[in-house]
């Protein structure tokens, strides 16, 4: 289990990184971006992927950091899970991060990397989706860096597929703040502590009964359901969530179990989030 050979690039600034990505992308041989590497390197070691080029962005200046801005939190491409967790910059993100793998993995893995990896069983895509956040990507065009923001709803295009195009680099993610007085929760069931969830639900409930959930592990992408119409009948909301999911069988759980589970978890998450909202309001 040793990675196949690749050409290594270690740009020190964003322009070089983008130029490199454009060049290696154009060659058709394919390039991969290396940030935390906690998902990519296992696949390399198993030789499930064999990119001709690896663009290591770990030394690129200006890609780190977690910025609290009006209306939300911007997380740079090199911000590690652990750093984002410790910062406590966003309550839902913090809760979700505690569920991501194990502490040692979180020391290296990046928030943006998890989004781009787009694993439908992962927590962070669901957080981005339920909050209606976005991912900022950049590419090199006509001698300059050009950026675009991709909203969460368009970002996750399939299992392990995101809207980031060849030659593009995800430079940051935007997690909008919760509305004042809103509560949130993230609950999941995994086989072992730290494993990808069999199913999981993150919920945001606003003071006026606006309620949204995003579910993991029950569809090709995070399944977002607006259940405001059911508030505060969370059991009915959970039934509605169940209707929206399309889980698959795998070796760890059947589709029927996942569908059942996501309803249970949706109800729990919504109750918890509503309780938090109520506590805030009080």
């Amino acid at each position, binding site marked *: 289990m040793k990675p196949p*050979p690749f050409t290594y690039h270690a740009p020190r600034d964003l322009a070089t990184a983008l130029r490199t990505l454009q060049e290696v992308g154009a060659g058709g041989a394919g390039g991969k971006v290396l940030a935390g590497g906690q998902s990519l390197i296992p696949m390399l070691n198993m030789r499930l992927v064999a990119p001709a080029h690896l663009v290591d962005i770990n030394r690129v200046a200006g890609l780190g950091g977690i910025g609290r801005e009006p209306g939300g939190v911007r997380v740079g491409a090199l911000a590690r899970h652990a750093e984002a967790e410790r910062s406590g910059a966003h309550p839902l993100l913090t809760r979700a991060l505690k569920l991501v793998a194990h502490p040692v993995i979180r020391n290296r893995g990046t928030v943006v990397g998890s989004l781009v990896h787009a694993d439908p069983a992962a927590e962070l895509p669901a957080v981005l989706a339920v909050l209606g956040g976005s991912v900022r990507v950049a590419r090199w065009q006509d001698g300059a860096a050009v950026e675009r923001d991709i909203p969460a709803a368009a970002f996750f295009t399939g299992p392990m597929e995101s809207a980031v195009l060849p030659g593009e680099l995800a430079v940051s993610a935007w997690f909008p703040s919760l509305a004042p007085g809103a509560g949130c929760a993230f609950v999941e069931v995994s086989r072992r502590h730290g494993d990808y969830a069999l199913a999981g639900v993150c919920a945001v409930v606003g003071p006026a009964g606006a309620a949204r959930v995003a579910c993991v592990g029950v569809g090709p992408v995070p399944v977002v359901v607006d259940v405001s119409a059911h508030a505060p009948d969370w059991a009915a909301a959970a039934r509605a969530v169940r209707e929206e999911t399309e889980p698959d069988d795998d070796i760890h759980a059947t589709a029927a179990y996942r569908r059942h589970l996501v309803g249970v978890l949706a109800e729990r998450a919504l109750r918890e989030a509503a309780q938090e909202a109520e506590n805030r309001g009080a």
Partner: protein
Amino acid sequence: MEHEITLVVNGAARRVRVPARRLLSDCLRHDLGLTGTHVGCEHGVCGCCTVLLDGEPVRSCLTFAVTVDGREITTVEGLAGPDGLSPVQRAFAECHGLQCGFCTPGFLCTVTAFLEANPVPTEEEVLEGISGNLCRCTGYQNIVKAVHRAAELMAEEA
């Protein structure tokens, strides 16, 4: 193509030429002869290869050596002090926290960093702290005991 890198390993600067794809675990073990860091799965799950990167535990099998050029690395060989075994190492011996010893270096590195950040952990925090390391021998009970014991030793010796 090979890259010349410098790693500060257990306090000493080590220069080494490695291909880009050389995993940090292999670099430490085979290029630098520090075979105390073990490789149990090479996909980041077992934790045997855990080392400290600038004081933080990371999987050396999920890290390319070139990526950490210039950084400080502590391996199990660097945990003991001039006066002998570290409190964590002593606690593992005292509590029978190891059997075959293969996973042990990863646990020692993880626990060393964990107790530095959290010197008086609860039972639940200890379990969370070591939750990313597999051991097939001990059933973890004596490892958990050793973490608490190490915390005691560190407090006594502080």
